[in-house]
């Protein structure tokens, strides 16, 4: 009897959580849906963010995430390859790399923002300005490239973990076969391991992209802006971004009621983006698992 109460209570916990999720999503959809229109997606904001669209924010988010992905994917894949294929089994460096990855995953997002400011902008950016631009302020200021690199470091653990999971799923016998036919380690990795790891690597990429599109704290001081009359084209341009837009509009809008529809619609777009990405990642992952189960 007592047992039944607790079982019900634990089920209630699930119910509460699921209910809250539904309320949040429902609330956003309810208020945001009506503002969505082709114009919303394709035009820039006007009249102090009270009308127009959010195209620049969408563009900025895409450009940012693209740069981030170009940086993080090779790095993450190679790190995972090192951990799983190249490193001697019990070496100290392997445990350090793993520890570093775990800790990178736990660093607060705002600290990444501080790092972006203190390292990329103040150190690397200033250095570039001094050597290549006669000390003119070009890269030593908030820029989309610095924001992208900061996000790349933040999402590195995601890519490494997903890639390692994929590598682990490949039976060792496949590698042995390649070796016994005279493959070098690089040939074995290129021809046997990587083709089979593509699914997991893709999952990692999608999860990283989803995370990168949603994090705001790291880009607060490394390049995001609320209103720009231009689209970011060069690496040292600033950019508008969906998450940042939501934050500023929600907290610093002079007229909350006027901007509310656009605000809700922007949240709707961001949520749809991150969910679409997450669902794709989950779908890819389950397809891989299904295929693995069949070959076994």
């Amino acid at each position, binding site marked *: 009897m007592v047992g039944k109460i607790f079982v019900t209570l634990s089920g209630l916990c699930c119910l509460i959580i699921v209910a809250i999720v539904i309320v949040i999503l429902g609330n956003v959809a309810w208020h945001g849906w009506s503002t969505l229109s082709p114009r919303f997606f394709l035009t820039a904001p006007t009249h102090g963010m009270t009308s127009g669209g959010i195209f620049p924010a969408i563009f900025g988010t895409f450009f940012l995430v693209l740069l981030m992905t170009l940086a993080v994917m090779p790095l993450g894949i190679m790190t995972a390859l090192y951990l799983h294929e190249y490193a*001697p*089994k019990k070496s100290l460096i392997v445990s350090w790399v793993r520890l570093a990855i775990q800790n990178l995953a736990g660093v607060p997002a705002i600290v990444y923002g501080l790092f972006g400011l203190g390292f990329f902008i103040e150190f690397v950016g200033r250095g570039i300005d001094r050597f290549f631009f006669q000390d003119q302020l070009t890269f030593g200021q908030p820029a989309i490239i610095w924001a992208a690199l900061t996000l790349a470091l933040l999402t590195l653990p995601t890519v490494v973990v997903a890639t390692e999971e994929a590598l682990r799923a490949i039976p060792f*016998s*496949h590698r*042995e*076969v*390649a*070796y*016994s*036919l*005279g*493959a*070098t380690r690089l*040939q074995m990795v290129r*021809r*046997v391991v990587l083709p*089979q790891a593509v699914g997991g690597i893709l999952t990692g990429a999608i999860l990283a992209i989803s995370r990168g599109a949603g994090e705001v704290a790291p880009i607060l001081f490394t390049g995001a802006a609320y209103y720009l009359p231009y689209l970011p084209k060069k690496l040292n341009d600033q950019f508008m971004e969906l998450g940042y837009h939501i934050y500023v509009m929600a907290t610093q809008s002079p007229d909350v009621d006027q901007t509310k529809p656009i605000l809700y619609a922007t949240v709707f777009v961001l949520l749809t983006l991150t969910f679409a990405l997450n669902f794709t990642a989950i779908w890819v992952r389950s397809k891989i698992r299904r295929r693995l189960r069949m*070959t076994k």
Partner: protein
Amino acid sequence: MENNTGLTVRDLCVHANGTVILESISLEINVGEILGIIGPAGSGKTTFLRTLNRLVDLDEGLIVTGQVLMHGQSVLGKNVDVVDIRRRVGLVFSVPTPLPLSIYDNLAFGPRLNGISGSKELTARMEQSLRASYLWEEVKDRLKESAANLSGGQQQRLCLARTLMLEPEILLLDEPCSGLDPISTAKIEEALKELKKTMAIVLVTNNVKQASRVADKTAFFLLGQLVEYAPTQDLFTNPKDKRTEDYITGRFG
């Protein structure tokens, strides 16, 4: 004096963390012969094979001492081109391990690693290897199909053909017929009898009868030691060591 010696093994020892896996193994493997290796599980037979093609390098913590010579050249040692050794000494594993590719790509895998990619040459070699493995008739029309569609016996013959694609001088087989149906087993044994004409073959088997059918010389391994090594007929009719006799007659297994 014609040198048709394939491999010469002298005082080969393998240990790990103080445990001895192989102790002072010395024998010869000649072209034109099949050497059968019998012995109970845990006797070091698989480790022996893996030493011959340097696959033992993948096993962490194993220390190998002694000499293995192929045509007078050392197989062991740090300065040896391990990749070259592995092409010249082929290994068929005890469990069929096709790669998740088509039959064609499985067979082409080895040659492609060596820069041989012309489809004419590849298909010619494939027919040769598949015929030698007694698999040609069964797959000649479905080379582009996935290797996973084949039965266990067919997959193992595919693995044999895949190894033959590299035209190895020495062929090692580690209990290749364990778990296979009798027809596939017979086909593989037939294939080996033909293949020994052009290469030296080492066949590890847990089936004593198979050794007596197929091998020219037989070696009995027990707990890492080479107990007895003689022409097959002599070993089976007149074993010199009591342990050999006990194993052959099934008193332990």
